[in-house]
């Protein structure tokens, strides 16, 4: 009995120490966090994980004197729980402890978590809300000079396990450095900020006065700069987006793909696709409708909808299998490939390729963007990046030309044979050529039509002659496409191609060590 008493006392001592970490024991700090319009780190974790449960680790860290009250859990809560039944590791900064800054034990806890993710192949979620290296007591070369291996480890983690960062408060400096290694970065609108230095440091260093929202809020970093990928209206939406993102991906690059429900008929006829593309090639339409119709019902999850909007990148499911759609969006800038659109596609390819998701290209492209703004945005580099990512991808891919397949953009969108698609398809409305017709006539035939008695008539004549040469039938005639399919048949054909495609292909690479990113 004595032994049991002794156990009971010891356990209750542990329970007291654990209870002191919880929100209920820290009401003053928690009230302050709520007044800032934010949930606490533990409230966030309760919403993130299945049944709100997770196994915390390192929660009981303390300085050698055993006093945990000063910095409960040392300002970062780490642990492993389940999302949709699968293990996911999380590090959540606790803003109520030294502004979420990372102390000596907090840093060690994050390191421990990353080691587990690396060794066990578990996805990593970062809930960011606070500072970087803790200044209080740690502005000291004894602590700092050695640094940790955390950035090297984050780099090693990318492409091995899915990594998601949700910024739910201040995210200037270190949180942004960490988020840089996430596949997907979500910001809560009105609360989250990102950037390498916040307004206070900017003011101190350069004298410039700027508000934090204006410097690094979601409107700037998600919608204008594209630094983060999704802007969430509130924390619940951000946490739901994390769960949704992970649902499309295996736990690591070598794990089996996830299976969705297969309640949408595999060969369902897509009747609405028959007249979705306007006959007039100048008219826009919303390509998201096309994706929604082809994919399994309610399975489409668009990434970066507000940035680079002339292209759409979206996860979806086809007969339960996770895939990545990459589409030109005629509704925005006619579907031109701008620098942001190229950058967005490049990164999306990398994620799909890392985790084995086939790439489904829907092509309706008038060309790459033109003019000084395109050059200033380094379209030459960004377009190269998009092409290079596709060239290195090993997952199945197919292309479907809906309407325009013009110029280098057609090639970059996996048109033709360049990137060996598992299927190269076209709708009857496709027109494929190296340059827009009017443009090419003005460049190559100006002298011809200007010398004619009626230049406008002659110009139109040349245009009509050329237009007759760019049809889907001629593309199929030259075996540029495998087949011209009826739009209503698109879902069935895509599913058949995906069923046949080999999971990973071996790229014919020379014996080099690595590729170098485009200029």
């Amino acid at each position, binding site marked *: 009995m004595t032994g049991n008493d002794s156990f009971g006392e010891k356990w209750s001592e542990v329970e007291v120490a654990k209870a002191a970490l919880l929100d209920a024991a820290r009401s003053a700090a928690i009230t302050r966090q709520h007044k800032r319009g934010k949930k606490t780190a533990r409230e966030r974790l309760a919403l993130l994980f299945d049944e709100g449960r997770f196994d915390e680790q390192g929660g009981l860290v303390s300085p050698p004197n055993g006093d945990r009250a000063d910095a409960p859990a040392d300002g970062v809560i780490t642990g492993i729980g389940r999302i949709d039944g699968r293990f996911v590791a999380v590090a959540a900064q606790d803003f109520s402890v030294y502004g979420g800054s990372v102390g000596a034990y907090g840093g060690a806890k994050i390191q421990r978590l990353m080691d587990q993710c690396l060794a066990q192949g578990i996805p990593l979620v970062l809930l960011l809300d606070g500072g970087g290296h803790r200044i209080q007591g740690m502005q000291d070369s004894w602590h700092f000079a050695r640094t940790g291996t955390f950035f090297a480890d984050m780099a090693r983690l990318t492409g091995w396990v899915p990594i998601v960062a949700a910024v739910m408060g201040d995210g200037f400096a270190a949180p942004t450095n960490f988020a840089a290694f996430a596949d997907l970065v979500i910001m809560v609108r009105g609360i989250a900020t990102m950037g390498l230095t916040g307004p206070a440091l900017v003011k101190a260093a350069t004298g410039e006065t700027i508000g934090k929202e204006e410097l690094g809020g979601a409107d700037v970093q998600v919608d204008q700069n594209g630094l983060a990928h999704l802007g969430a209206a509130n924390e619940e939406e951000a946490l739901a987006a994390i769960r949704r993102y992970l649902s499309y991906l295996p736990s690591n690059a070598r794990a089996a793909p996830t299976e969705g429900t297969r309640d949408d008929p595999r060969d369902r006829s897509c009747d609405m696709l028959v007249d979705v593309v306007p006959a007039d090639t100048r*008219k826009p339409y919303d390509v998201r409708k096309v994706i929604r119709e082809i994919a399994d019902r309610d399975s489409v999850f668009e990434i970066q909808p507000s940035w680079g909007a002339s292209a759409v990148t979206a996860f979806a499911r086809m007969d339960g299998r996770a895939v990545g759609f990459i589409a030109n969006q005629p509704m*925005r*800038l006619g579907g031109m490939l701008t620098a942001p659109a190229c950058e967005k596609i490049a990164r999306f390819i990398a994620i799909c390729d890392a985790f084995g998701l086939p790439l489904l290209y829907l092509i309706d492209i008038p060309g790459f963007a033109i003019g000084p*703004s395109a050059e200033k945005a380094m379209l030459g580099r960004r377009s190269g990046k998009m092409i290079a990512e596709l060239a290195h991808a090993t997952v199945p891919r197919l292309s479907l030309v809906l309407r325009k397949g013009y110029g280098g953009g057609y090639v970059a969108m996996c048109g033709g044979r360049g990137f060996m698609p598992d299927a190269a398809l076209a709708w009857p409305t496709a027109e494929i050529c190296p340059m827009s017709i009017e*443009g090419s006539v003005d460049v190559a035939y100006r002298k011809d039509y200007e010398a004619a008695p009626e230049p406008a008539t002659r110009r139109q004549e040349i245009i009509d002659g050329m237009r007759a040469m760019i049809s889907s039938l001629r593309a199929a005639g030259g075996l540029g496409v495998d087949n011209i399919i009826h739009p209503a048949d698109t879902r069935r054909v895509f599913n058949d191609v995906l069923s046949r495609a080999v999971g990973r292909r071996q790229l014919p690479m020379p014996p080099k060590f690595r590729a170098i990113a485009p200029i």
Partner: protein
Amino acid sequence: MAGTIISIEGQVGEVVDAEETIAIMESMKMEMSIVAPAAGTISEILVAEGDAVVENQPLVRII
């Protein structure tokens, strides 16, 4: 990017949602929807149909 405004879809006083088309521009032989960057009420229309416009030029004012 630069282009020509071929139609204006909104009117002064009209309430628009974010992402709602407020004008159509033609450029590169394509019609492009210009959408409202935020929800609000159109207080002023600054261009007319047929006007040539350039990047970053205000087209309508939404308050």
